């Protein structure tokens, strides 16, 4: 594993997400958009363990998962612009990203509803006697959904090759864990009770994420069945949109500042020479500018294309 490469990947995702935030007010990206800023380490640490044949499903906050898995940048930005050149031909928007060529099998907008679909993908891998695995991302809120328990149960029952990857960022929209789950509960400990190997880690430490996912994948390939991983992290921006929302009253500015001090990119930013950072920013910035240009200059889908895709 090349730690420097992981950091560069995180830095690239950060810059892409910031470009979306910066340009969101142009009103050209007209769809609900959930930015991954602050949560890049998990996506990168996970994906560095996966090949294109390993299948990933994700959530409404999927940009980092998609990009880290190798999803095409132009297609993602164009999708957010609602263009026919988007990864879902403009039919899905920011919350429906897909790039099957790299094993990113989709992200959806309904809490917890890709979890069983990922279990189905894992089942297909087992039936095909494949050496690949499935991985599904979801948040702390999804562990309150019935389908989470149903899915984990079936995956254990059938010994399926899947990583359940819980990104605990403390909030479901603006509802904190304290109003949603009993005080003192540790999600990974509760899940352990179902009979699945379950671990917990710092989701803002890419090195730690990488190592824990590596162990989990090896366990699956050794026939030890599905694995559950919970990583703590924090979203910096508002639940949905480009702004900060620490002022609206659901969380304290001090909490945000504390997490910002624990920026997953800290080590990288501190240890990289300014000239090198500028150089990187320059290279990535050009790629990003081209992606926005590509999206902006692409066509909206024709109504006939919509009808054809909807089989009307």
């Amino acid at each position: 594993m090349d730690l420097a490469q992981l950091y560069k990947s995180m830095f690239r995702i950060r810059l892409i997400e910031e470009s979306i935030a910066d340009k969101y007010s142009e009103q050209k990206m007209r769809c609900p958009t959930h930015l991954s800023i602050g949560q890049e380490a998990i996506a990168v640490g996970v994906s560095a363990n996966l090949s294109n044949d390993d299948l990933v499903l994700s959530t409404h906050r999927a940009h980092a998962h998609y990009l880290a898995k190798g999803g095409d940048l132009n297609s993602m930005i164009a999708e957010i612009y609602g263009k026919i050149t988007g990864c879902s031909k403009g039919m899905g928007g920011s919350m429906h990203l897909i790039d099957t060529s790299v094993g990113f099998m989709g992200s959806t907008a309904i809490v917890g509803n890709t979890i069983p679909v990922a279990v189905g993908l894992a089942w297909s891998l087992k039936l095909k006697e494949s050496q690949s695995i499935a991985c599904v991302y979801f948040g702390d809120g999804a562990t309150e959904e019935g389908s989470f328990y149903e899915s984990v149960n079936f995956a254990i029952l059938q010994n399926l090759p899947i990583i359940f990857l819980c990104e605990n960022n403390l909030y479901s929209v603006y509802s904190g864990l304290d109003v949603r789950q009993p005080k003192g509960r540790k999600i990974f400990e509760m899940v352990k009770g179902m009979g699945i190997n379950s671990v917990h880690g710092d989701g803002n430490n890419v090195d730690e994420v990488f190592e824990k996912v590596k162990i989990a994948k090896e366990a699956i390939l050794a026939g030890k069945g599905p694995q559950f991983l919970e990583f703590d992290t924090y979203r910096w921006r508002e639940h949905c949109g480009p702004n900060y929302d620490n002022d609206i009253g659901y969380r304290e500015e001090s909490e945000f500042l504390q997490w910002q001090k624990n920026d997953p990119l800290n080590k990288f930013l501190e240890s990289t020479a300014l000239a090198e950072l500028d150089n990187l920013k320059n290279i990535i910035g050009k790629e990003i500018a081209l992606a926005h240009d590509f999206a902006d200059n692409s066509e909206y889908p024709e109504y006939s294309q919509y009808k054809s895709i909807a089989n009307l």
Partner: protein
Amino acid sequence: MTRKLSYSQAINEAMFIAMRESNKVVTFGLGVPDPKGVFGTTLGLQEEFGNKRVLDMPTSENSMTGIGIGLSLSGYRPVMVHQRVDFFLLALDQLINNAAKWDFMFGGGQPVPITIRLIVGHGWGQGPTHSQNLQAMFSHIPGIKVVMPTSAYDAKGLLLESIFDDSPTIFLEHRWLHGLESEVPEESYRVPLGKANLVNTGSDLTIVSMSYMTIEATHAVNELNKVGINCDLIDLRTTSPLDVDLIKKSVTKTGRIIAVDSSSQSFSVASEIIAQISMDPKIVLKHSPKIVALEDSPAPTSFGLTKDYYNSASDIYREVLGMFERPTDDIEKIFYSEKLHDVPGDWFKGPF
């Protein structure tokens, strides 16, 4: 070669054929490999195809639907079974938000060829949550096909077509049809989705019905024929797609329509049929259209109530006579039956 098979035997045969034709067909559901085999429809499958392709499942309707979707995204053709449609209501998130939309919301090329077999109860105390007719609710969702076979012949051909169709398909089996026999060819054949069946031809009136109600309508049509009223009887086979063309063609000829539905009336498939006819400026009706459907209330459980609640051939017959301003005095005599009203025949002893 054809021979007589019951509806449930025809479904069983379709499953054997599908699983032999493609090793991507898998089937699961509570009770699929149990000794009763979902009313005989899944008997013998696990013995022949093994427990990787034929399996029981946890009581997890929503996730098992999602898991089926995941399988189908990877090239499999899962057939999920629930012994009552009512249990499947837990899975509406996966059905409506994922199965119906996956191919569309990712821009095409992501078909979800899952078939979901759901059994509709009727009578013998099934009551409010074991005998719901929800075809209109399913048909309302773009992206899903809804199949309601009436004969054993259609059950086999439509199930094979559903399994190998690339859309998610809801396959509704009325419990009272499982014992019904018809001529069924031994070989593999398909009945296309979206093509209704003209069961009887006549020039005076169009009756449109589906599933078990086509059996009742057939009795009514036979009796109407004796009093000189000749009916086109259209069995829908699928409520989505709806074969509007065939219905319009028939009504253009007859100028009269009664839509018979096994569900409650408001927002029903029958309502949609009448709406489609009403909106066509080329169709001129000789009489206002009618619907024979259930009251807008939950199904009763008690033996003392189900007779009045459900419609039968005599109710259809009465509506038709009313349309032609004929006397309706001797209906009770014509349709008098020794059999109990809440079972489909002597073969049915309950409990479900």
